[in-house]
């Protein structure tokens, strides 16, 4: 949708294109500037600076945390947890989803569990994970894994179940033995849905990670947020929040970009 009315369109013709794009960009982002401006103003006047640090201070602190590298180890730990948790959930989720769709016994065994686990908010499993794994990386990975598992299982299960049987038959008639069908036909045909599942899982992964790190961790961005809040360094706490949000944002965008690049056929 465009917001231009015809007067704007006439204006557009008389302005060079790059300048126009710039003006347009600024125009589109004015609301963010308004919100940031209100916040900047409110901080120190309506509410205390310590309670709501202004965006300028948060920006500076964000830059500081990044440029001094202070946050980097924690960011690394957090991203590592997300990467491992997500990767595990992809491998297990795809195998489980495809397995359930293609084999009745596997479906019988797991369907009940998925139906039971599905409605549990995964963050509620953190205490259990603490019992089993303590308060560190494994717990965070387990929670990320569990939280991401379901969208991936669901998507690959549904896709593998709805797979065009002619594709399977095509492969069979060209001599592919039955046992290779899941690998050679079902999984490739399911890939677009698997990718959708992963896309849905990424924001969930970040929520799960932060939950786990807030409740039980001694490292990672969630822990840093909690730590800074506990020592009253609220500007830094907001800065870490900005950093984790940026990480989430760019992970999703980067993933979408890579998806378009890598899977040309879907």
């Amino acid at each position, binding site marked *: 949708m465009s917001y231009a009315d015809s007067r704007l369109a006439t204006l557009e013709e008389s302005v060079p294109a790059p300048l126009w794009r710039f003006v347009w960009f600024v125009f589109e982002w004015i609301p963010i500037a308004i919100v940031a401006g209100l916040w900047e103003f409110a901080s120190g006047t309506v509410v205390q600076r310590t309670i709501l640090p202004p965006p300028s201070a948060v920006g500076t602190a964000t830059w500081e945390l990044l440029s001094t590298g202070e946050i980097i180890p924690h960011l690394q730990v957090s991203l590592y947890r997300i990467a491992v948790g997500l990767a595990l959930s992809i491998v297990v989720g795809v195998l489980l989803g495809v397995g359930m769709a293609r084999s009745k016994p596997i479906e019988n065994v797991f369907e009940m569990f998925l139906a039971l686990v599905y409605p549990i908010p995964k963050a509620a499993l953190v205490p259990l994970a603490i*019992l089993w794994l*303590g*308060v560190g990386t494994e717990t965070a990975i387990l929670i990320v894994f569990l939280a991401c598992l379901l969208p991936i299982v669901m998507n690959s299960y549904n896709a593998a179940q709805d797979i065009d049987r002619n594709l399977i038959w095509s492969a069979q008639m060209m001599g592919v033995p039955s046992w290779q069908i899941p690998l050679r036909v079902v999984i490739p045909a399911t890939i677009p849905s698997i990718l959708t599942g992963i896309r849905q899982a990424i924001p969930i992964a970040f929520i799960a990670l932060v939950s786990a790190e807030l409740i*039980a961790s*001694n*490292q990672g961005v969630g822990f840093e947020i909690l730590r800074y809040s*506990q*020592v*009253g360094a609220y500007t830094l706490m907001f800065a870490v929040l900005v950093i984790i949000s940026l990480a989430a944002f760019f992970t999703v965008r980067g993933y979408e970009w890579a998806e378009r690049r890598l899977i040309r056929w879907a």
Partner: protein
Amino acid sequence: TGGSDTGTLRFNFVVPVENLGSLLDIPDIQDQLDNLGDAYELEVSRNSSTPDTVNAIAAGEADMGLVTTESYGGAVTGPGGMTAIATDFWDAHPDHFGFEIYSLPDSDITDPEDLEGATLGVNATGTGIHAVYVKMLDEIGLSEDDVDFQEQGFPTFVEGLQDGIFDAAIFPALFAGEPRSQGFTEVFTSHDAFDGAYPFAFTIASDRALENKSDAVEAWGEDYVSVVDYIFENRDEVVSLAADHFELPEEMIDGFFLTENDYYRDQIEIDMDALQATMDELVDLGIHDESFDVQEYATNEYIEDHL
């Protein structure tokens, strides 16, 4: 995090400076550990509460850690498989600091009796700090159900009182300076709750580590005894090192560390009788269901030869 090879000891602490063990995180202090690098490696990390430390050790994620009375008792009766190997400090020692419970300067709450129905700041339930409250409530005939506990980090307690998040809060030595100097109302201290000094914090180790890495723990014990001596002898240097390392104001640490405003820390050897009495007390308070023979879950063998 990781390495659990035979030579590496993974060590958890909760409150910086207060737990002597936390000082092992400081590189300059590590230089004083003679056996470090030869007989063992050390990985120090921080948890937000002692129950977290116990669970980390139970899950095999840490080998050693600092816990307090209540969590030590919980560790033994709960997950099990842990043994105390040194005392960290004592609470309520007549000549030393005991936990202080403050309300705002103009608060109506001036006596423990006023706590009925109040919201109380605590770092986490399940800790020895929590037990201090429970003991006092018990003394005046109240129970945990008569108050609300609010779990939050110690550094936020002054602000929390001012913002009305809680009506009273408990301060360990590191954080007690501020309310004291600002003229907050002292509701009670652990001297009022307990008859006398009792061992409060301990270094515990998992039995797995004691079995599989006994040489490393042995070597660590030797180093630990000497590093504690070193800390006492080089108090001022340690204060500034700690301030630097933990990013805390130096005057804050200087204001209590190894002064009369600090806990009693002169004895790192475990006093079995005192420990047994403390654990039995927790059972009396209803914090733990059953007592146990501390001899089976505490030992001085790793430090006593080096004292």
